[in-house]
């Protein structure tokens, strides 16, 4: 059994206008030491997914169904007390904006010691020694002085290093990194990503990387999920998805990369924008933006607008698309007849 298993996770928000389905039927698993990427546009539900893994969805959101199983324990049926033992200790999280994640009024040392003491019975002195060791691991210059400094005295890159050090403090099994480099400078981004990858490999820590940077995903992760409007639409080994995307949305994402455009021309963007979760289109949520809803004979495929696509296995990947399903069916028929 995998270290982390997510089955049919379903998250809703009870709003005045009625219930909004933020996540539907999310299924994935993560082995020890494996690195998984979650990509998608803003609003696809990536961050909600990250928070719901630790059962930290704030009201009015709630987990309406499905299970998150970590190391044999079902996290979304656990007591708050039991969850606290998992959070920070076995699964930790890195947030997007290092300017906001550290408490401005506590020194770095205080924040690190506090986290350690919340989970282990150790003296402040021992905690400080561990904190110092972790700061050295993230290669921060003069780590002793950092312990007594406040977040405002440090640069963005240094703060993100400290946040990584905090995430590693208790030697977790999994780190969830929610767009860890979005708020940083491009040059710093590469450094931080390399550091994170390095540390995960060294300590055999699993990583769930949430990002919209396909480049980072392809360099760092072994498997990936593509999310659209609260659903996973394609998942599989990262290399296969990047090299041979099947879902029209994934194809669109990869085509939209600047290096895919012809010099001097506009970038190939996906037309339209993500639908509101409270007002999803019928059938496949992507169909209003999809270029492939017409069949080979030029007629629109009725299933696309009427029926939510099921996952089909295509090679090592799973894709939720009527067009792909049809192609696979055609190929199977051809093989049978020949």
């Amino acid at each position, binding site marked *: 059994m995998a270290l982390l298993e997510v089955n049919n996770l379903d998250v809703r928000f009870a709003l005045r206008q009625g219930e909004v389905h933020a996540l539907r039927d999310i299924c994935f698993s993560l082995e020890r030491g494996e690195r998984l990427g979650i990509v998608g546009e803003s609003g696809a539900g990536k961050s909600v997914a990250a928070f719901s893994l630790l059962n930290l969805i704030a009201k009015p959101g709630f987990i309406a169904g499905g299970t998150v199983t970590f190391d044999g324990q079902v996290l979304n049926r656990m007591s708050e007390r039991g969850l606290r033992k998992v*959070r920070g200790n076995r699964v930790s999280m890195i947030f997007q904006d290092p300017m*906001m994640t550290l408490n401005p009024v506590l020194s770095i040392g205080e924040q690190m010691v506090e986290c350690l003491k919340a989970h282990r019975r150790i003296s402040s002195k021992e905690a400080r020694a561990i904190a110092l060791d972790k700061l050295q691991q993230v290669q921060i210059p003069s780590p002793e002085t950092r312990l007594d400094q406040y977040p405002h005295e440090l640069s963005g890159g240094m703060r993100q290093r400290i946040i990584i050090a905090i995430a590693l403090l208790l030697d977790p099994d999994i780190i969830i990194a929610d767009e860890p480099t979005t708020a940083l400078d491009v040059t710093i981004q590469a450094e931080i990503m390399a550091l994170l990858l390095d540390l995960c490999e060294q300590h055999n820590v699993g990583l769930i990387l949430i990002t919209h940077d396909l480049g980072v995903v392809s360099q760092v992760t072994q498997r990936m999920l593509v999310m659209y409007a609260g659903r996973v639409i394609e998942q599989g080994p990262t290399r296969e998805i990047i090299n041979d995307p099947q879902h029209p949305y994934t194809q669109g994402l990869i085509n939209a990369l600047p290096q895919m455009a012809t010099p001097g021309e506009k970038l190939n963007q996906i037309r339209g924008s993500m639908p509101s979760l409270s007002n999803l289109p019928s059938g496949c949520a992507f169909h209003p933006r999809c270029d492939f809803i017409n069949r080979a004979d030029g007629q629109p495929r009725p299933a696309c607008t009427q029926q939510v696509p099921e996952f089909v296995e295509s090679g090592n990947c799973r894709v939720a698309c009527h067009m792909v399903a049809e192609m696979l069916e055609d190929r199977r028929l051809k093989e049978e007849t020949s």
Partner: protein
Amino acid sequence: MSTTNNSSQASASPSRWERLRDSYMWYSFKRDYTAQLCLAVFICMVIAAFASPLLAPTNPYDLSQIDIMSSELPPFWIDGADDRYALGTDAQGRDLWSVVLYGTRVSLLIGFGAVILQALIGVTFGLMAGYLGGRVDTILMRLADIQLSFSTLMVAIVVGALVKATMGSAFYSQYAVMMLILIIGLAEWPQYARTVRASVLAEKNKEYVDAARVMGLRSKRIMFRHVLPNTMSPIFVISTVQIANAIISEAALSFLGLGMPETHPSLGSLIKSGFDYIQSGSWWITLIPGAVLVVLVLSINLLGDWLRDVMNPRLYKG
């Protein structure tokens, strides 16, 4: 090796004093003469009040030192003044300078005590209401609304009447300071609760709170150690206003006879005791404690104004 290490550390992390000297607060204080004057006046008054047993020539609480024959003597600049009583005497023959010193001490004690009580109740309730939200929020804030709809005066009358009825009025006068702290503290806590709740609501959605939850910290710890320190500046600012208000409330209650007894006067009861003699020409018995009260409250309020300007980042002109 160790010395170089120490010196590099010292230069990298400045001491508390250096931090204060380099802060915007100190910078602004150095340029604000009103704030300097107010702080000087306030500190002098606090020192004088708490050193009153040393500074006062007589002890107004000691009945053997009071001579009824020397009552209503005018202050030194008016004919008929007695050298022993620089600011004159009150209707009972107490040295006015001494009673004002002792009275200021009582007023300050009640002011600070009441504000500490208000802050304890108000900050705890405000934090809980803001952070926990939902039903806790509704209950605590409705409680605050109910509390605010009673005036301080009404709380004082009710508590005073209850205590006097059950324990006797001798008990009440003996513990009058405690009683007033309790009354003013209970009557005004919603001010804190509302202010704290408002800033907690703003802080609660910041990422560092999520980060603390992800770390697996308890709600209580997040509330008091992470959120509370970030709501300190509005708490400081309203504290100055609340101290001034508490001192005025106490004076008003004492003036109405609901506060300190005349044997143990505060500034308010001094004003009251002199009020009966204004018609007979002894205006100083009321006016001198009145002036002290005004100066005290004014200096606290002006200090509060300065603090508000310093701590409000929108007015920050660095």
